[in-house]
């Protein structure tokens, strides 16, 4: 039986300060995190609980520790349950644990506004005329890529070999609806004017632990952030950061359903590709969506045809297992609409998918101004599509004119900047940030550490992602006045 698919997103943002002659991205990112004006606590992130070097295939890696111990100093936990910090040379927003894909999309969008407010506050501190800008994209167009990761809770009983076997083709082919679009090719891939994804060019292995070089289609990092005897947590690194709300919803929703069906043995065939790494960039470079990919054992199919297969299997799965789950039903409907329109004419999808919206815009400029794909203006437009500043973001200009569909109101997103999801342990974490900011000294996904003024710090473990929700701890949190009261009420001493 599949475990409930608690999920979340982890997004690194592109950062720049202009004009600047000695721009230092790590320093700028630290400044950004420290300037965020919303409710948050700067904490020590309890690194000892993290194990990025643990491999789901069953082996550990020596020396795979914390790459940037100084980053531990620039770490904030937000009242919405998220983590805002510096990862290498980028600011990263790791959203709170969400109950479903709709909530996951909402908190991913909240991250953009949190980054915007932090950048605006940092700009106030810069020299006159300087401005900090942040971009929710995944490539600088010069061979440097930074991640937009997703995570999904899995049962520890699910053999990781099955995940590798079944998920590879799903991840490669879902790119047709997860891509944010990019001008040009990188990392030695064949030249192209425009491609569907930002990230495909950077994937060079089928399976592996790496995230920064020789990126694998299936990442084996084994950090359950919960009871390790019960859970895995699949770390998905093959995806783009998206602006389109519908697209984030579909990306998270289809993947969560896929993984649930995999755990329940409801996927009839792994649909093995002959060469997944090659198929990865080929699918991204194919704007016609009609070029066949070679299947292992002979025959061919397009990414779109393979996605129809997954859609049909999961539609049946939802009808059988999740008929009362409104979000799951909505995922299937959204998916069907998008695949149908991709099949008829990708231009019809410009109101739902970033890559198609961006392509429509760029082709408009090409036609109006007589530009070639090599024109820097198109690359500039590509980058600016992702600017988190609502005044500069080209995505926002499209939504303001009703040319990209939305799922949320600005008010709903603003609320999610401050308040946590209520059906996961993010509720406990976020509420503690709001209520007891002065007592919270360290945090991790599965614990909080309080200083209640006594000789010992008090650690509250949170090993169950679905506990610590409002239903279980709301009344308890409301009934206490301070962190000492909380620890006493939880039965600690």
């Amino acid at each position, binding site marked *: 039986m599949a475990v409930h698919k608690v999920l979340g997103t982890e997004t690194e943002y592109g950062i720049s300060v202009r004009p600047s002659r000695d721009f230092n991205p790590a320093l700028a990112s630290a400044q950004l995190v420290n300037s965020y004006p919303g409710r948050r606590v700067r904490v020590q992130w309890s690194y000892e609980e993290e194990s990025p070097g643990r491999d789901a295939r069953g082996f550990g890696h020596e020396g795979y520790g914390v790459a940037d111990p100084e980053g531990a100093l620039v770490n904030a936990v937000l009242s919405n349950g998220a983590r805002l910090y510096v990862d290498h040379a980028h600011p990263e927003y790791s959203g709170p644990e969400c109950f479903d894909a709709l909530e996951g999309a909402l908190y991913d969008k909240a991250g953009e506004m949190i980054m915007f407010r932090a950048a605006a506050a940092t700009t106030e501190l810069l020299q006159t005329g300087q401005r900090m800008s942040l971009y929710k994209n995944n490539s600088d167009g010069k061979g*440097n*890529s930074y991640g937009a990761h997703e995570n999904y809770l899995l049962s520890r009983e699910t053999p990781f070999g099955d995940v590798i076997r079944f998920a590879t083709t799903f991840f490669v082919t879902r790119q047709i609806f997860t891509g944010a679009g990019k001008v040009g090719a990188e990392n030695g891939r064949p030249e192209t004017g425009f491609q569907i994804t930002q990230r495909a060019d950077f994937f060079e292995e089928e399976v592996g632990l790496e*995230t920064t070089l020789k990126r694998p289609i299936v990442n084996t990092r084994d950090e359950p952030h919960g009871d390790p005897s019960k859970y895995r947590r699949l770390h998905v690194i093959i995806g783009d950061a998206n602006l389109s709300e519908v697209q984030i919803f579909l990306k998270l929703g289809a993947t969560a359903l896929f993984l649930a069906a995999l755990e329940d043995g409801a996927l009839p065939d792994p649909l093995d590709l002959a060469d997944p790494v090659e198929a990865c960039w080929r699918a991204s470079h194919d704007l016609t969506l009609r070029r066949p990919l070679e299947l292992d054992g002979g025959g061919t199919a397009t990414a779109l045809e393979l996605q*129809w297969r997954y859609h049909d299997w999961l539609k049946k799965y939802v009808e059988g297992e999740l008929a009362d789950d409104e979000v799951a039903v909505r995922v299937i409907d959204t998916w069907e609409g998008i695949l149908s329109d991709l099949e008829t004419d990708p231009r019809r999808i410009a109101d739902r998918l970033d890559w198609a919206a961006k392509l429509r815009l760029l082709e408009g400029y090409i036609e109006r101004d007589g530009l070639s794909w090599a024109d820097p203006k198109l*690359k500039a437009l590509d980058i*600016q599509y992702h600017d988190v500043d609502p005044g500069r973001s080209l995505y926002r*200009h499209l939504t303001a004119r009703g040319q990209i569909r939305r799922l949320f109101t600005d008010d709903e997103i603003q609320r999610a900047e401050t308040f946590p999801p209520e059906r996961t342990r993010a509720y406990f974490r976020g509420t503690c940030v709001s209520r007891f900011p002065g007592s919270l000294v360290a945090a991790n996904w599965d614990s909080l550490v309080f200083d209640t003024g006594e000789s010992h710090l008090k650690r509250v473990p949170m090993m169950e992602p679905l506990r610590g929700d409002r239903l279980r701890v709301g009344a308890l949190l409301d009934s206490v006045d301070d962190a000492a009261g909380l620890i006493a009420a939880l039965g600690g001493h």
Partner: protein
Amino acid sequence: MAEREKVRRPKEAERPDVDEDTAALRAEADDRKLDELLDEIDQVLEENSEEFVKNYIQKGGE
């Protein structure tokens, strides 16, 4: 394995044909909307595209 080669496209038959005149009108309306949008975007575009793109360098990550 043969089954895999016959990957079907289930939705093709179910979709009604789009009337050509309607499609043309829709395309025309979309062109107009796009033109207005491009004019608006011209006002907020980074001034020196070449410089902007050249300076957008993002090293390290993940």
